[in-house]
Every structure is written in structure tokens, then in C-alpha cells.
């Protein structure tokens, strides 16, 4: 004989006469809907009232600058590689010698995110070693043409703005380069 298993047999009670007429249930349902009829409206009137965006929301991916206004992206292309729908295209480039953040790594010449392909998965943000790409709170995106929905570098920085972090990587790089010319 098998040992008793931890299965609870639920006794299915046959429906009572009142239940079989459907009427008490229908009446109860009517009362519930009537409560909602006089109750508070739960929907937002969208364009005027905007939903509250919770932290960690994954909106349109954007590029951010550091508090000194320098771009953080070094065009390592990790996001381009990790992007599942291949929405990101980066053309890496050298930084000109007279640029304020010169003698530090590279920067993207072109950075395009095709929002028609983007699936808002957030892998680009997760993979970015420089914390340069963030999915922020822009959720309403529209355009008249396909070309309009490909965000280029200017658009991405405009959407992204400045991230008030305290890494100041370029300052440190510059200081390190200035004080240790041996390694140059």
C-alpha cells in the first residue's frame, strides 16, 4: 500500500438551489458594479495627468554626460554587441588632441539607437562599464517617419542630460596622465 501523499481532496459541494438559479450571484455582481458606479474613478486622464514613473523604470535608452558636461561613453561597443534586437549602431572615433577630455580613450563619432527595434530590455544599461547609457523615464515616443525614430547622438544626449554621479573619471585620468608621464 502506498503511503498517504500530501494531497488534500477538496469536497466539491453540489450547488444549492439558489446558486443554480444564478440570481444571488447576479444580484451580488450588480451591487459590486453599483459600488464602482458611485466610487472613485481609477483611470488617469492621460495627456493632462501623467502617470508617476517609479524608480528603475525602463524608458527610452539615452546617453548621459558627467557633471562636467563631458560625454561618458567611450564607444567600447559592448552595448552594441549585447543588444538583442541589434538596435544600436556605434561608429567609434578618436578624440581630437585639443578636446577638453583629450588623451583619454575614445568617444563615439556616431551613436544611433533605432527605437523601432529597441525592446527596452535594459541590457545596454546593465552592460555599460562607463555608466553612460541609461533607460530613463521617457515613455511616450512617436514620429512621422521611420528615420525620425532613429535617435542619433545629439538626440540621445539631449534626452539623457547629465547624470549627477561623483566618479569624475576624466578628471582622474587627466590627473593620472599629468602626474605620471612615464607611462605615456
Amino acid at each position, binding site marked *: 500500500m502506498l503511503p498517504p501523499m500530501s494531497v488534500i481532496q477538496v469536497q466539491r459541494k453540489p450547488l444549492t438551489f439558489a446558486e443554480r438559479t444564478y440570481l444571488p450571484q447576479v444580484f451580488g455582481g450588480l451591487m459590486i458594479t453599483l459600488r*464602482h458606479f458611485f466610487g472613485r474613478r*481609477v483611470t488617469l486622464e492621460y495627456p493632462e495627468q501623467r502617470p508617476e514613473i517609479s524608480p528603475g523604470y525602463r524608458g527610452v535608452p539615452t546617453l548621459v554626460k558627467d557633471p562636467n558636461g563631458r560625454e561618458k561613453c567611450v564607444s567600447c561597443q559592448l552595448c552594441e554587441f549585447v543588444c538583442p534586437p541589434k538596435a544600436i549602431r556605434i561608429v567609434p572615433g578618436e578624440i581630437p588632441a585639443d578636446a577638453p577630455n583629450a588623451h583619454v580613450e575614445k568617444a563615439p563619432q556616431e551613436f544611433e539607437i533605432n527605437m523601432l527595434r529597441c525592446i527596452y530590455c535594459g541590457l545596454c544599461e546593465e552592460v555599460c562599464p562607463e555608466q553612460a547609457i541609461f533607460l530613463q523615464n521617457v515613455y511616450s515616443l512617436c514620429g512621422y517617419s521611420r528615420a525620425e525614430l532613429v535617435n542619433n547622438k545629439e538626440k540621445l544626449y539631449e534626452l539623457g542630460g547629465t547624470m549627477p554621479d561623483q566618479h569624475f573619471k576624466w578628471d582622474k585620468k587627466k590627473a593620472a596622465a599629468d602626474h605620471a608621464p612615464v607611462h605615456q
Partner: protein
Amino acid sequence: MNLFLQIPPVVLGLLKGLAVICVIFPIAGACSMAERKVSAWLQGRFGPNRVIVPWFEWIPFLGRGLQRLGVFNLLADGGKLLFKEDPLPGHVNKFYFMIAPAIAIIPAFTTVVVVPFGAYIDQAGQVVPLMLANVDVGLLAVFAIASLGIYSMILAGWASNSKYPFLGSVRASAQLVSYELSLTLSVLPVFLWVNAPGTGASLSLVRVVAFQSLPGFWGGTWFIFLMPVSAFVFLIALFAETNRLPFDMIESEADLVGGFHTEYGSFKWSLFFVAEYAHMTVGSGVFVLLFFGGWNPLPWLPIGTFFGWLGLVQSAGQFSYAIAITQGVLSIAIFLAKVLFMIFFFMWVRWTVPRFRYDQVMRIGWRRLLPLALANVVVYAIVIALLQGD
């Protein structure tokens, strides 16, 4: 006023008919708007509240209020349906496809002819009903004509020549035939009661209201209290006959796309809807007349007494049109208020309960409602025979 009375009867009938259509058609149209709004409120939403005609913006409060109520959405909806491209699929039987919406709407509006919607009191103290044709067949005409509406669904489903409309119309024919039996049986006790010995036979709805306006406790009782089972069966059957949830087997948006009107679009589609709401309006009207005392404001308060309180009584000498018209408008308002509440009740139920399964619909119709209606007739026939027999 004399000029009005000199109009030939045919023209007069036409004018009255047009006037009634001009009231019923907007009600049927406005119901579609009310349905959207009521459904929104029942679900805790706002519903349509954006459309506004530019000039109305300048009216303080009222314009905005109407906008929030979504009144102008009705115009937008109507305009859209009227001017939209009317597709005619290539695979349909064109003739029947085209006439099906007309067949839907003609019976729906024809039934109004024998439904009284108000009354005034003449010099002799007699209640004169306001209706297009006070004929003795009364309710029988309503049932006969209203049941023609099913042909539009069968024709629409069959002429569409595609599977979902076909299934929808098969369900329609089965359901409507099943529930018509209970519908008709449920009102028999009412007419057994109002056709008391010595009064002459009549199926007129006017007499039903007259019986609910009698003095005394039992005279003034509305028939919903005297015959609750009849009222209940009639109401359920009415839900089924007007294809409202929980009996909308015919449209079944979820499983049949839209049932018989799947292939229809724009104005032809909207005609089906106006017809459905017109059926609802007339059905609610008949229900109010049969069980809710018609134009009597409250139970045990006949409209004659009510007018007496308001001082709206014809003096013995001169017949006053002003008093008669005020009485007529008041009685129509009372009647319409009840009808509109019934329509709200239809919507309320629709947005509360889910649809029955097809086999449940058939089981309720044949194995629950029909025996109940039959037993009801038998019991009331015996009771009425005992009460009214010598």
C-alpha cells in the same frame, strides 16, 4: 388648434408617426452613447469626455458639463458611421446583405405604433392614452412584429457567406425561438386578470395600465407586486429577445468576432445597433406598461390623483389645451423616466455578468424558464378563476 384637427387622418397619422420616430431614433442613438458612459462608470473609468463642438466651449459650465458627459461624442460617432466607407465584401449575397439592416430597423420602429407612452385626462375624467394606434391586438402586435426582427439576423448571417456570421445567426434563431415562448406565456396571467368577465376581450396595453390605476389597495397595485414571477420571466426573456448580455449568443464578440454583423461596416452596422436599442427601448416600455404601472408616478398613486394634486384638472365648461398638453408632457416624462431606468438596468446587467454558454442558454430557456412560465400561467389561471368567477 382647430387647424390641427382638420388635417386628414392619414396625414395626421403620418405626422404623429414621424414625431414618435423623431423621439425613438435619438433615444436609440443616445443609448449607444449612454452604454459607453455607463460601462465606463461601472468599471471605474471616466468614459468619453473629450469631444466638444467649438461654440459650446463659450457656454460657461453647461458646455464643459456636456463635454464631460460625452454628449458630443454621440455626434462624432454618428458622423463617423455615416460618412465612413461602406464596404461590400465580394463574397456576400448582395441583395439580402443590403436589405438585412433595413429588416432589422423596420420592425423595431413599427412596434412603437401600439405602445402607449403617455396620457391626459379629458373633461369626463377619462384617461385618454397618447399612442399612435389604440388597437385591441395591442401586445400581440408588438410580439408579432418584434419577432420579425430575427429575420434580419438570419438574413445577415446567411447572406454574409462566412462562418462566424453563420454560426451567430444559427444561435440567434435557436435562442430567439426558445425565449419567445416564455415571453408570451409570462404575460398571459396579466391579460387573464385584466380581461375580467364583462369587460370585453382586449390585449391593449392601455387596459393593463388602466387596471394598475384603479382606486383601492388591490386596484392600485402594480403588477410587479401582484405577479412577480410573470415579471421575472418576462424580464429574463426580454434580455434574451433583445440579445443583451448575458444572452448575447448572437454577437459573441469573444468567440464569434461579432456574430451576424461581422461582415458589416459603417452605416449598415450602425442600423443593426439602432435596431437593437430600439428593441430595448420598446421592450422596456412594454415592461413598464405591463408591470410598472405605465405612466402612473408611484404605486397606489394613479396619474389622475397626481394631476389633481398639481391642480391640473379640466374645468367642466371649457376644454383647456394647455392643461391637456401639460398633462401629456408630464405623463410622457414619468413614463420615459421609467423606461430610461430600465435601459440603464439593461446596461448595468450587461457590464456586470459574463455571457452564458450556448448550452446553458438553451437549458435555461427550455428546462427552467418555460416550465416556470407554464406553472405560473396555470397557478394564476386557477387563482383568477376563483377570484373573478361568480
